């Protein structure tokens, strides 16, 4: 079965370095003494802890619940005791700490009761809620909560389901090994996805540098009761990017600013499909994943690793070598440098790449941009990276956005080919995060303006209401007064003066009356006493405040 394939523009062919790790079998990493499990391993709201320090938990038990729709639960990767819920180092470039739950494992590795889900009998919404509570998130790198992606929505249908086995990043082989050894499980997961999304066409894109994985998947696909097409695609970085995979397999482009579901396509990583199968058919939440440990280590290979295992453990297992210059999470094109080796493996950790000066020589000094447009030729998003660079560098973020900064997928092709060795992607990340920060700031200042304006309005309204009440009182007194002299008939100047004074007093009285709540008239002596007590306390506060209070502050 051959399929007409398409190509995407741009892209590069960096050295693959796959054979270092994909020739070894998968080993399970041993159970570490401590597991540090971050609560924000996915995109969306961090999970909320549902255990306390000192609690005993079992393997697979939910320790933090999903918070909201776009979120995913977090589970204990093994049995043991919760020793801390605090800020710990997490695998993030900043080196900042984030909320984590620390487990001291008891070595028994005792599972909770696992119940497979009868997904065909369940309502789709309920099934998705279950998957969210089992912590499923995309294992390709973006860790978007899978339950959300498995919701085709009311209007959208996803006739095409693409399973991404591209794995275009150099060095990484975890998806390759997963497909070789767990092809049937992956396709079981695909069956669940197909059920939820109502897809009719299922394509599995695998780069043609993984012939064993292709063969294994094809053999497994032949045994499925629905049609799955295993499509070898040319190895061409970033062919494993979701948008590029869609273009290669279908010839369609995801419209700028839209989602692939808008054109009826949903894409999942093979690892996600596998995790989904484990969840549905075995009742196992997402507590472990395959991690490639490679680069400057003695025995590069893939491990089955419990989430929360320190990266240092894996590097020791693979054989640490002298001359290590750093560790990346992910591959050399898009990977993130780790602030320390003590950070835990998380759901997004597909690879721990150990650097050395020989494998990754320090980048040569950057030279000025000579506008050679090699970056534009290499850009798979078909942007003009040299212009984006110029705008980002100058802080002209508006223009950068006009030139489609947010269509950049940060694949690194532009930086890779740049003869001036400019860290272009750095500039785009900087510009993007600056724009987001500004939008946040703008929202904050809009809120402040709104609240300030409302406050002004409120003060104004209170003033007005006060004035109106005063006027009403004065009016009442005046009518009373003007009624009295009429009885006396004789009006002299002295009387007039008296009347004025009386009116002023009446006004003062009115003001007082205004200041005092009206329900203080005709009250019982006890209540009166209480009122007096309160008044005395109030006077004390006034004294403290050295400034009389406005009436509105009264209780």
């Amino acid at each position, binding site marked *: 079965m051959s399929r007409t394939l398409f190509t*995407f*523009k741009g892209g*590069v062919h*960096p*050295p693959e370095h796959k054979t270092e790790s994909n020739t070894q079998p998968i080993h399970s990493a041993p159970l570490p003494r401590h597991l540090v499990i971050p609560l924000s391993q996915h995109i969306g709201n961090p999970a909320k802890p549902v255990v306390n320090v000192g609690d005993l938990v079992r393997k697979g038990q939910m320790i933090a619940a999903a918070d909201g729709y776009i979120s995913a639960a977090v589970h204990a990767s093994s049995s043991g005791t919760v020793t801390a819920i605090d800020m710990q180092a997490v695998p993030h*470039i900043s080196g900042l700490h984030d909320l984590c739950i620390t487990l001291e494992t008891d070595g028994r590795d005792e599972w909770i009761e696992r119940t497979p889900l009868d997904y065909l009998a369940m309502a789709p919404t309920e099934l998705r809620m279950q998957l969210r509570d089992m912590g499923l998130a995309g294992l390709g790198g973006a860790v978007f909560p899978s339950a959300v992606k498995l919701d085709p929505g009311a209007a959208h249908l996803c006739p095409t389901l693409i399973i991404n086995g591209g794995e275009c990043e*150099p060095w990484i082989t975890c998806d390759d090994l997963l497909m070789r050894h767990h092809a049937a499980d992956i396709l079981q997961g695909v069956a669940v996805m197909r059920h939820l999304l109502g897809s009719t066409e299922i394509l599995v894109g695998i780069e043609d540098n993984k012939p064993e994985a292709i063969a294994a998947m094809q053999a497994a696909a032949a045994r499925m009761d629905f049609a799955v097409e295993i499509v070898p695609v040319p190895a061409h970085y970033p062919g494993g990017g979701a*948008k590029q995979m869609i*273009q290669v397999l279908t010839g369609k*482009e*995801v*419209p*700028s*600013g*839209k989602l692939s579901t808008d054109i009826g396509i949903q894409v999942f990583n093979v690892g996600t499909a596998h995790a989904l199968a484990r969840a549905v058919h075995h009742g196992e939440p997402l507590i472990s994943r395959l991690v490639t440990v490679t680069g400057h280590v003695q025995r590069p290979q893939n491990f089955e690793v419990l989430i929360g295992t320190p990266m240092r453990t894996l590097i020791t297992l693979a054989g640490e070598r002298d001359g290590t210059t750093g560790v*990346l999470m*992910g591959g*050399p*094109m*898009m*990977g*993130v*440098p780790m602030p320390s080796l003590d950070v835990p493996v998380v759901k997004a950790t597909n690879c721990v790449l150990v*650097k050395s000066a020989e494998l*990754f020589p320090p*980048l*040569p*000094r950057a*030279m*000025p*941009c*000579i*506008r*050679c*447009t*090699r970056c*534009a030729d290499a850009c*798979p*998003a*078909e*942007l*003009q990276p*040299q*212009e984006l660079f110029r705008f980002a560098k100058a802080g002209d973020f508006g223009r950068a956005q*006009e*030139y*489609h900064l947010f*269509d950049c997928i940060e694949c*690194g092709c532009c*930086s*890779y*080919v*740049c*003869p*001036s*060795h400019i*860290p272009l*992607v*750095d500039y785009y*990340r900087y510009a993007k995060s600056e724009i987001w920060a500004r939008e946040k700031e703008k929202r904050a200042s809009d809120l402040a303006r709104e609240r300030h304006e409302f406050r002004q309005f409120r003060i104004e309204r209170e003033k007005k209401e006060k004035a109106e009440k005063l006027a009403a009182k004065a009016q009442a007194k005046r009518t009373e007064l003007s009624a009295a002299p009429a009885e006396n008939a004789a009006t002299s100047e002295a009387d007039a003066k008296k009347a004025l004074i009386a009116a002023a007093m009446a006004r003062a009285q009115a003001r007082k009356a205004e200041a005092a709540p009206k329900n203080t008239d005709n009250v019982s002596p006890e209540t009166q006493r209480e009122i007096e007590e309160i008044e005395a306390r109030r006077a004390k506060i006034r004294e403290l405040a050295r400034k009389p209070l406005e009436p509105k502050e009264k209780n």
Partner: protein
Amino acid sequence: MPAPFILDRSSVTQVMAWVLVALLPGVATYVWLFGPGILVTLALATVTALAAEAAMLKARGYPAKPFLADLSAIVTAWLLALSLPSLAPWWLIVTGTLFAIVVAKHLYGGLGQNIFNPAMVGYAVLIVSFPVQMTQWAGPLELTATPLSLTQSASVIFGGDFPKATLDAVTMATPLDALRTGLLQQLTVDEVMTRSIFGHYGGVGFEWLAAAFLLGGLLLWALRIISWQVPLAFLAGIWLAAGFLHFFDAGRFGAPWFHLFAPSVMLGAFFIATDPVTGATTPRGKLIFGLGAGLLTIIIRTWGGFPDGVAFAILLMNLSVPLIDAWTQPRIYGGAKHPDKDPSA
């Protein structure tokens, strides 16, 4: 330092080095046809350019080593030297090179920042200021009685002392200049073309030089150092404009092949208009840039005050690059159009 952590093996130095290599066939042909005088010119321009570059880098607080090693100053020097008459006096070479490096390159912000092609600015300044010296070309060897040796050329360049007897024999106008003068004398193109300087296409010797530059240009294209758009559009612009005029009045306007095979055109099309720093960056923009430069070249050659228009045409197009780039932003993946044309953006 975040990702990516690996780089392709390319560098500015490598790009510039290939440009120099691609110029070598042209230089060799030059020596073969016009004698070794050009080597003196090249050496003098190179030394001047490197000294000026080093001084400007120091003055601007940049480290000299990596920026001298990028070879861009040498490329500028060679392009200027190859545009000058082969026996131009030393002060002409030095003035042009200094102007190119100091004013056109560094005062505009150095490598990558200059708006105008430095070599062409240097050339334009010289031709405006010293028109006489700029048109004194040593004739092709096959037309001159006594070719000058390297030392003789050097003494001509540095001392200004032509061997008296051979002065007239050695220097002569370029074909373009000859055509222009002839036309001014109310001669027709055919009458002018009967003179010995005109060869089969562009002029004796000059057409071989043009072919050598073409060869070097094709090498750069094969190495993907230059794109096809600019040279092709440039040549097409020349051919179309010259052909159009020639078609209407063959007596007053030179044939398109004659215009194409002037060496300045091939040098301009493959080495100067393709300068990435001062050229358009978008694919359509490159076509417009090249076409515009080609058309302007013929317009200036035909109606302008100077015999050749390549330098001015390229400088004028350099000026319009920001506009061309802004107008020709390509469609991106996912179909969003350029903001200028997209009301929703």
